[in-house]
């Protein structure tokens, strides 16, 4: 370590942020190093200070934040005290930034090409014309098929994946030595996320650019980083090689993070090791070890004194009990593997002799949205949100619905909830046709079907107290007041909120608490079916695990029938007995969860599975990385809608739309070549090579 000057060295960085009554230190002594060819991952939940830290490197801090101590050195030069002009000269040229939200990060009214080549012009590296051609080259090299069109277009005209590539192109164009990628894939679909991670990995590997990758998702970081730092409450609490962090986490927080992700290895329905509580708010870090309030190992010393980051084994950790924990926990990886083995053998749900009653039956419903154009008097756009979707849900089942943005899963939820009308088809609930019921009849139906929404902020009326929110359905269906109050308390306690929460307003609650209220509201009236639309995707990782556990408690305790919608196949798989995979308004595969996730029949399912960033992934194996982005739902491709992205598409795919057909074991798939991709998934090495050759062949 000593001797050579590292490319970037962050030394004991402190950052304070102005809050209501003064400054609060939110980054407290962070030290980092990054070197050519290295990839450093920073992991932490919201408020951990990871973004502030990296912003401080290039000195682009929010107005309220100040660097109070420490240094950032680039090739030995202190950037924290350099002139603004000097820092500007370094930005974009030596250090580039790729951030999360590509739509917000691109100037909406400037052509993409101009934005991509702006660093060249700002640093006077080449002339205008040359810069433009360099921009096109760069975009092409990132695998964008038609760079000329992209450079002439505006950001909103392109998909998230293309925009993110444009951002990367911008970061790369002046050949910087270091790229800082801050949650570069967070808002992207799984298949696109895989593409972007692939690009970043190659940059680092092949071009030797130093990389700092920031994410809340340990899995994502572990995909490409050789070194990982875990941040909590403004400090790095553990750092070490990826392998060590994942395999032998020493800090209880790291451990919990590793365990709170529902990975493919965990048996379905097993409880996740969720961290209790929520990440501390910057307004008030706990005293002593900030994690002590959530730590099951915490002792008095933890609550009194904050541990230093000290070297241990290969890495460094800041925990009073690191040694015991590391020893006690043993190799988690091994444990996981054994569990996996066990679960695969015995995981198949006990097939009931007598299939339970059909609770919900959906018969080829179709829903086309008319989206009014942004301007008045122009014809509306038609979005093929749902196209002849059929499903059956039996009592007690949990049906998981997975798919990417725009696949129609939320529309499906709204149609089933009868919050949206269908254009054709039938919906039967307990044998009754509820497709077109209205008024009082519809209102009565609500008693039996309840929703849980994604956005814990938007779905609670800010003007209602928790009590009245939870009691809403009860009130609407005439439950007497006394009974109502009892039920509210009961429900609140069940979802893990005390009775005293009844008097709070939503804005007084944290995200996790809100989502618990959302769940409590849904179960208060004892519905027969709950439809949950992305209920955990807006939550922090550790909180997400708590809520998933809550869902499992629900299933167990109330024998609920649940439709669980998520873009995250990990979560779906963990919770569901059955899964339906949707693509562009169609269900393309359906079947028992475990079967679908282990032996996907549809190439798209395979690709989704393959793109899940798995901690246990062996970076050397290839992945099925799909080309491009999902096609527009306003004009779906002919034939099989997946064919434009399918590595296996044949001529017939363009002509004939495959029907959803029965397969063995109650599985269904809509593909002309079912199982064509699943060969690879199960059979270990060698797959990657073949995938890549197939992909390469198609792309050529």
């Amino acid at each position, binding site marked *: 370590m000593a001797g050579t000057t590292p490319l970037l060295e962050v030394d004991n960085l402190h950052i304070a942020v102005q809050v209501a009554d003064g400054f609060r230190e939110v980054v407290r002594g962070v030290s980092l190093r990054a070197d050519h060819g290295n990839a450093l991952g920073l992991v932490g939940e919201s408020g951990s200070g990871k973004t502030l830290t990296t912003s401080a490197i290039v000195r682009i801090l929010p107005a309220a934040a100040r660097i109070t101590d420490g240094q950032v050195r680039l090739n030995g030069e202190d950037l924290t005290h350099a002139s603004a002009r000097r820092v*500007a000269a370094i930005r974009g040229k030596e250090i580039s930034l790729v951030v999360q939200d590509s739509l917000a990060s691109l100037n909406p*009214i400037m052509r993409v090409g101009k934005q991509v080549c702006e660093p060249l012009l700002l640093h006077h590296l080449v002339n205008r014309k040359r810069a433009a051609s360099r921009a096109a080259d760069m975009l092409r090299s990132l695998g964008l098929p038609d760079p000329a069109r992209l450079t002439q277009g505006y950001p909103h005209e392109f998909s998230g994946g293309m925009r993110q590539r444009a951002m990367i192109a911008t970061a790369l164009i002046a050949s910087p030595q270091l790229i800082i990628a801050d949650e570069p894939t967070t808002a992207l679909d799984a298949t696109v996320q895989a593409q972007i991670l692939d690009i970043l990995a190659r940059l680092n590997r092949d071009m030797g650019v130093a990389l700092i990758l920031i994410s809340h998702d340990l899995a994502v970081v572990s995909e490409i980083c050789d070194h990982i730092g875990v941040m909590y409450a403004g400090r790095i609490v553990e750092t070490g090689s990826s392998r060590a962090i994942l395999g032998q986490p020493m800090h209880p927080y790291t451990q919990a993070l590793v365990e709170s992700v529902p990975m493919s290895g965990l048996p379905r329905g097993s409880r996740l090791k969720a961290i209790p509580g929520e990440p501390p708010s910057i307004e008030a870090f706990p005293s002593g070890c900030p994690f002590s309030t959530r730590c099951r190992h915490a002792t008095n010393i933890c609550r009194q004194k904050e541990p230093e980051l000290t070297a241990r084994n290969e890495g460094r950790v800041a925990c009073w009990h690191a040694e015991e924990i590391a020893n006690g926990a043993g190799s988690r990886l091994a444990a996981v593997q054994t569990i996996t083995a066990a679960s695969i053998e015995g995981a198949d749900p006990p097939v009931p002799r007598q299939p339970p009653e059909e609770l919900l039956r959906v018969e080829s419903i179709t829903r086309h949205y008319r989206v009014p154009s942004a301007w008045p008097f122009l014809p509306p756009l038609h979005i093929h949100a749902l196209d002849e979707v059929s499903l059956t849900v039996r009592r007690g089942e949990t049906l998981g619905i997975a798919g990417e943005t725009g696949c129609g899963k939320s529309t499906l939820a709204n149609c089933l909830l009868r919050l949206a009308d269908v254009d054709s088809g039938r919906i039967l609930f307990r044998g009754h046709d509820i497709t077109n019921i209205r008024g009082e009849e519809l209102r009565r139906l609500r008693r039996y079907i309840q929703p849980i929404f994604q956005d814990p902020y938007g779905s609670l009326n800010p003007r209602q107290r928790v009590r009245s929110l939870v009691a809403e359905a009860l009130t609407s269906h005439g439950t007497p007041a006394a009974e109502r109050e009892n039920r509210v308390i009961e429900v609140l306690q069940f979802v893990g909120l005390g009775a005293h929460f009844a008097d709070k307003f939503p804005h007084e609650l944290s995200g996790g608490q809100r989502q618990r209220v959302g769940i409590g509201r849904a179960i208060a009236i004892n519905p027969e079916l709950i439809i949950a639309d992305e209920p955990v995707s807006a939550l922090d990782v550790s909180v997400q695990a708590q809520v998933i556990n809550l869902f499992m408690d629900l299933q167990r305790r109330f024998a609920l029938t649940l439709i669980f919608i998520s873009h995250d196949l990990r979560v779906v798989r963990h919770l569901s007995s059955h899964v339906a995979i949707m693509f562009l308004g169609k269900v393309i595969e359906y079947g028992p969860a475990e079967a679908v996730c282990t032996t996907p029949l549809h190439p798209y399912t395979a690709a989704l599975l393959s793109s899940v960033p798995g901690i246990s992934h062996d970076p050397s194996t290839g992945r099925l990385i799909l080309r491009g982005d999902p096609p527009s739902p306003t004009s779906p491709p002919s034939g099989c809608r997946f064919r434009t992205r399918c590595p296996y598409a044949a001529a017939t795919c363009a002509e004939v739309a495959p029907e959803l057909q029965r397969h063995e074991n109650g599985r269904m798939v809509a593909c002309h070549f079912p199982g064509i991709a699943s060969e690879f998934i199960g059979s270990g090495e060698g797959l990657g090579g073949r995938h890549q050759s197939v992909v390469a062949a198609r792309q050529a």
Partner: protein
Amino acid sequence: MITYVSRRLGLLVPILVGITFITFMVSRAIPTDPVVAALGQQAADHPNIVAAYRAQWGLNESLLIQYLIYMKNLFHGNLGQSIYTHRPVAEDLLSYMPATIELAGFTILLSVFISVPLGVLAAVKRGTVVDLLVRLLTLIGVAMPIFWLALAGLELFYFHMGIVPGPGRLSPLLNPPPRVTGLFTIDSLLARQWGTFNNALAHLILPSLILATWTAGTLTRMTRTSMLAVLPQGYLNTARSKGASELYTILRHALPNALIPVVTIVGLVFGDLLTGVILIETLFSWPGIGRYAYEAAIYADFPAIIGITLVFGVTYSLVNLGVDVVYARLDPRIRTAMALGRR
């Protein structure tokens, strides 16, 4: 875009019909005898003149028929005769319009030149004394009774200090330039009459400054708000991360984005401006539609009032249409939405 514009123009028709209908009905609600009002006393004593007039405007018919007749005449460019000026309303409107356009246009220009820098400054220096000052000033501007400000301004700057010319569009000693557009500044430039140009410009300054206290107040506030909304945007940090200086970031990335919503406000501000024009033109002897409107209201000159509401309504609608078009030109997102919509 063309279809869009023509659709919007098509929508003007019901608006105009609505405007004329309402004003027409209001005008018939007053006890004034339209014959006496329009023809004057002498003519009102001559039965055949009265009869001819009643026939022309269908005064013996029902109100609805009268309205239809009015619309028919309107369609032929006949807006009736002003009770106050005794001239055809259409002719009056045409002769007064350029003065108002010149004043309003200059005011808008002036407001934009004042507001944008002020608004940007206040937003960038948010929370500082500069910001506070700008906000106070703009609030005062918005709250100012401009009829009072106009009087005080004339008294002070013209009468006592003599640093601006007096009321009117041009010094009485100068002849107006040969009429091309009717805007003295432009016409004098076209005719290369520099003295006249300077004089016309000098006459514009005080009235438009006073008018601009309103519009600039609103615009500055909007610019500030809009700029504050843009400043935290990610793409500014992107620009900085590319190595852009703060000034470059503000001017090239933040400002263009911040100005887009401001453009739509210009359309709204224009409505206020029409109100202000009535007061300012009256106080500044500015021979425009505003003063005409004032006289018309004082004399319940309804033929003129209908004409003025029409002109104001059309102008307001057209300006807002123009604003929307400019808005679309400026914001590629809207453009795309329109293109998609057409398909």
